Every structure is written in C-alpha cells, then in structure tokens.
C-alpha cells in the first residue's frame, strides 16, 4: 500500500484502556492543581475534569494558607501525584521526591528538573541522572521532558514508567510546537506518552491525543481560564474526542479534492 492509502497509525478501531504505572485509569486527563484562584474553584474544576490523578507540590507551610488542598483531593477521591517543581539539580529533585514519598506515602513522582528559569525547559542531563537514581530507589517515575525523542528513549531505558514531553513551555498556552517530534516519541515509546505542558485550550489536548499520546497533563489552561470549570469540561471532552479520533483512523491528507458524492447517475442538464 502506498502511504496515501495506508490506515493512519493507531487506527485499530478500539480505544484501549489507559494503563500507567501498572494501574488502569478511567481518565486520560491528568490535572495540575496550580494556578487556581481559590480552593472552591479548584474543587469545582477538578471535579469537572473527571481526572483521577492530580499533581501537588511540597513547600514550606504558609501560615496565611486557608483550607486544605489535601482535603479537597480526598473529597474528590483523587490519587496524589507529587512533583519536584522548582528543582534545578538531580540532587534536589531526588531529595524532594523522597520528601514527597514521606509526605504522601507514595512512590509515584512527577519528576521535573528545570534547566532555565525563563523557559522552564528541563535540564536533560540532570533529569536523566535523577530519573535513574529514583527508579533504582523504587519510585514510579513520570518525567517531564523535552520534545526530544532521543532523551525520551533514554528515560524509558532507565526505567521510567512514562515519558511526558512538553508541547511548549509550561503555562505558555502555546500548544504543541513540534508535533512531528511528539509523533516520533509516540511511535518509538513502549511506555505511555503523556503530553505535559503548553496546552492552551481544548483543541491542543485533542491534537495531543490525535498524535497518539496516551494522556495529557493540564494545569494552567484550566486553572487560569476565565471560567475554569467550563474549560475543564471542554478539555475533558477534547481528550475523549482526540483519543477516539486517533483509534478511528483519520483520512489521509490530499492536495486535491476527493468527491464525496458519486458522479454516477448525474443528470444531463445541458
């Protein structure tokens, strides 16, 4: 078959279950908890996402903080995925992961090792180093990574439970700036690929799923939307639409039209 007639990649006609870290999940949308204007808004929006996994961070206690994030998460029955946000070295990230393990009694960690404070791009060298050490220490490591297929392969090789390439910088809302690289990462990965960072609106999430990502992680696009709960509903629907479209098999792109109505039986109206 020529490329033009080959079914689209992933077009098996069935949406498979989403398995991450040895567990099956009903939602392919992982929600970040940062950026909401209030805990009430966070609770309403998280509920609307249908997400089962939510990220949290560890920081010094703020005496001004009102209410408990964990109470909200418990009320909604969500699984806590701690992160290492704010870490710039493997050493700090590993320590933060171990603190998170004590705090939340979980081996799961969203590993972030930042290399640059303007772009918040990952530091590839430190990231890989931290991932390897944490995997060795029994963690289920979900690394936030660049849209770099080679680095994704290296992270998978050291035992990460997923790879989570960025679409564009964290909080930028720029969507997926290098869809071709994301497609290559998907094509080669044998662990789930989670599009992490850059989603700006629902269509970005649908696009990530159409490219073959197994899930998306969305924070700012929801929390900083003018109406977070409505955006949560939109992103949830987009993720479901995107994964269905992926497995349905889109038609190939062609330069010229292909008539959708038969020419046979066309009347002579001359």
């Amino acid at each position: 078959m020529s490329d033009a007639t080959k079914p689209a990649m992933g077009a098996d006609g069935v949406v498979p279950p989403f398995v991450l870290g040895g567990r099956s999940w009903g939602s392919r949308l992982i929600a970040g908890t940062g950026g909401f204007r209030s805990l009430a808004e966070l609770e309403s929006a998280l509920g609307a996402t249908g997400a089962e996994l939510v990220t949290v961070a560890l920081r010094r206690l703020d005496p001004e903080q009102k209410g408990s994030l964990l109470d909200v998460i418990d009320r909604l029955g969500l699984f806590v995925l701690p992160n290492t946000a704010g870490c710039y070295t493997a050493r700090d990230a590993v320590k933060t992961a171990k603190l998170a393990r004590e705090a939340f009694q979980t081996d799961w960690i969203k590993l972030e090792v930042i290399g640059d404070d303007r772009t918040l791009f990952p530091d590839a060298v430190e990231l890989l180093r931290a991932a390897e050490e944490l995997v060795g220490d029994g963690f289920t490591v979900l690394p936030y990574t660049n849209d770099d297929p080679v680095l994704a392969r290296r992270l998978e090789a050291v035992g990460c439970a997923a790879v989570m390439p960025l679409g564009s910088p964290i909080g930028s809302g720029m969507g997926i700036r290098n869809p071709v690289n994301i497609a290559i990462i998907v094509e080669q990965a044998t662990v789930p690929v989670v599009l992490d960072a850059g989603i700006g609106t629902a269509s970005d999430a649908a696009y990530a799923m159409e490219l073959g990502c197994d899930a998306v992680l969305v924070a700012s696009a929801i929390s900083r939307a003018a109406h977070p709960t409505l955006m949560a509903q939109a992103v949830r629907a987009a993720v479901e639409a995107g994964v269905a479209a992926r497995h349905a098999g889109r038609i190939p792109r062609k330069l010229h039209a292909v008539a959708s109505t038969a020419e046979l039986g066309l009347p002579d109206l001359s």
Partner: protein
Amino acid sequence: MSGGSGAPGGSGAPGGSASGSQIAVHLNGAPTLLAADATVADVVGLSGFAPAARGVAVALDGDVVPRADWTTTTVREGARLEVLTAVAGG
C-alpha cells in the same frame, strides 16, 4: 509558625521546659528557639500539624527524616529544619 514568638528574644522555647536549656535552630529559614530536647515530632507539632499529618515531610540539615524516625530524632543547636506541606502546583 516560624519567625514569630519562637525567634531569639521571643517568649521562650515552645515544645519543651521553659527553664534553661534552649537551642537556636533555623525552622523554614527563620531563627527559632526550641527546647534542648526537642524532637522532629515536636517541631511538626509546633508547626500546627497533627502527629499523623498526611502531606507533611521534614528535612533536617538537608536530609529527609523518615516519618518513623520523627519521635526519636532530636534536633541539635544550629540545625536547619524544613517542615513542608502539600501546596497546589504542577
């Protein structure tokens, strides 16, 4: 929590005997006085958390103190303590 009444010159050492021996530590970056026999568990309590406190972790001089060791780990003069909790993020 930190930098308030527990600061040097403040109203004494919370979490221990009022008399005599106190130690100066850094608690979440703020100078703080503690009873000389204070444990990590005492510091967690001072920070307003219940002993079982889910979502709380402690680092002592940059190293993680496992939960199981909170009651038996004592704090020394000059120690750097970080008491951390869950916040929104990521």
